[in-house]
């Protein structure tokens, strides 16, 4: 803290306008260092934000973004009146809500269990195996799911067959997919989540547990009154971030695992896969409207969640 104060005093300049020539002369070197990134953000982030006006236009390739005809909210109307709007919004929201809850619950539970394992070697081994899927692309996880679910060769149907059951054509059974997708999502990310929570539990002052033990607290009471309260901060931060992304379906998961099978769209289609398919078919106007809707709602949700958290406990707010 001291260090920073000293630095601040030596460096703070006499107040002059940010836009003055004098300020520029003092700062041009640092500004130059920031320049590549500034140009990057203008070209690859701000230009597409401006380009999002095509959501209000009837896009054609010859006239480009600026030349195309304005159509007001027609693209939005078309989307919200279609059957797709409800289906993809519901799927995206429900899947993400399930992911947020289950990832947190399973992650915390595994972290608490892992904390009870005292052998360093075992912990290392369990952590490394759990985190393996994190290093795989969704394409490879697609291979794995295919090897398990393939109707004629897949391992799952062989197991069912071994118990005398009838093999199931998984890629034609809608009812199974909510479970399949949730399982693969957890399988992919739970290692990292667990390690993160575990690291947080490890950071708790050991003397708290010792004092609790002397006072006669059992394992469950220690978890309830020491460990879980300590985890609230990291859980809140992760949840704010996740709620901000609740309108964003993980494209890899929803594209690679169900293999883009049309029959499964009612239960596997999310906003991101819908936008990709629409764009491929040339529905530029409607898909950009959906993208803008997604982005806007996402932003509102982040700001809202953060504001609510800030009101309850400013320490847990993200910004």
């Amino acid at each position, binding site marked *: 803290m001291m260090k920073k104060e000293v630095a601040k005093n030596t460096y703070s300049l006499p107040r002059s306008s940010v836009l003055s020539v004098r300020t520029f002369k003092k700062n041009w070197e640092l500004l130059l260092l920031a320049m590549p990134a500034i140009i990057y953000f203008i*070209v690859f982030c701000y230009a597409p934000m401006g*380009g999002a006006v095509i959501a209000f236009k009837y896009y054609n390739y010859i006239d480009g973004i600026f030349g195309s005809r304005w159509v007001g909210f027609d693209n939005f109307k078309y989307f919200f009146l279609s059957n797709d709007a409800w289906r993809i919004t519901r799927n995206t929201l429900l899947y993400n809500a399930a992911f947020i809850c289950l990832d947190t619950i399973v992650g915390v539970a595994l972290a608490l269990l892992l904390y009870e394992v005292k052998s360093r070697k075992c912990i290392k081994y369990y952590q490394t195996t759990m985190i*393996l899927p*994190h290093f795989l692309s969704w394409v*490879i996880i697609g291979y794995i799911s295919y090897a398990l679910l393939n109707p004629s*060769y897949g391992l799952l149907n062989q197991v069912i067959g071994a118990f005398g059951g009838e093999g199931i054509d998984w890629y034609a059974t809608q009812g199974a997919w909510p479970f399949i997708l949730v399982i693969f999502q957890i*399988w992919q990310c739970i290692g990292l989540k667990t390690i993160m929570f575990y690291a947080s539990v490890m950071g708790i002052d050991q003397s708290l547990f010792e004092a609790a033990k002397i006072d006669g607290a059992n394992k469950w009471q220690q978890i309830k009154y020491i460990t879980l309260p300590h985890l609230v901060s990291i859980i809140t931060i992760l949840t704010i971030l996740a709620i901000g992304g609740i309108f964003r379906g993980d494209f890899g998961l929803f594209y690679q695992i169900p293999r883009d099978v049309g029959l499964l769209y009612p239960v596997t289609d999310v906003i991101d896969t819908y936008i990709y398919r629409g764009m491929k078919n040339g529905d530029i106007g409607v898909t950009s409207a959906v*993208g803008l809707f997604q982005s806007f709602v996402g932003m509102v949700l982040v700001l809202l969640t953060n504001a609510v958290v800030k009101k309850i406990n400013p320490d847990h707010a993200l910004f």
Partner: protein
Amino acid sequence: MEKRFSVSKILLNGFFILFSLCFLLPFLLVVSVSFSSEASIEAVGYTLLPSEFSLEGYLYVFQNPQQIIDAYIVTAFTAFFGTLCALVVMSMVAYSLSRRDFAYRGGLTLFIFITMIFSGGLVPSYIINTQYLGLGNNILIYILPGLASAWHIVILRTFFQDLPMELVESAKLDGAREITILSRIIIPLSKPVLATVGLLILLGRWNDWNTSLIYITNQKLYTLQYLLQRILREVEFIQAMAKEMPTGISAAQIAGDLPTESMRFALAIVAAGPMLVVFPFFQKYFVSGLTVGAVKG
């Protein structure tokens, strides 16, 4: 007391051993299929151990390896070169942002923060990249749009901020330029955070398939993961790999003759294997990257 303790210990470790099998067995399955003979797959399906050991999948892969070599070169080049470029661009801006005396700090922070919570979406980006920047079917599409990310800049900036300011100060007194301070003082002190961010970017790029899916039609520019996806999905792709087949044989016959199943999985091993062996060694960097990222910006 002693006995109860050991029972719970056995239960706990038993649970974790079973749990880790859930992560290991799927890999074993893929490896096993790649080493199975086509006939045995036809007969009994995919098995956890090959019911008839065979290298035919791998033989076909290595007989006509041009596509895989191309994809390896494209992926390795874009992953390593792209990561390096991104680290340079981001450490420069992060250094400026880390300096409390930088007059444009507040404005620039807001400028970058906005990109964190709002985006124009996939479609406008696609139109701008292809129509206005000419990045469609261009290898630069793998590098340029990934040059910077607000999250990674925040991680770097937070680390730079905590370095002792006196170093910068004394260098300035000696008349050093900012670029010199960055490259000679800040960068050498920041190796851990650069390794963390670098590995995060590298992993993302190595596993990239959506960029090819959206922007690339030229087969020579496919990334490994995208090549794999096409091989898993499309039989024609496997046929294209068997160019040496005599002409006059129908596509269906070629497909029938090829060890398509084991070959697909052999390819997956050839493509994903090396990195899967390498990355876990850097596990601690990924974990630290996560915890740094979870700290408030």
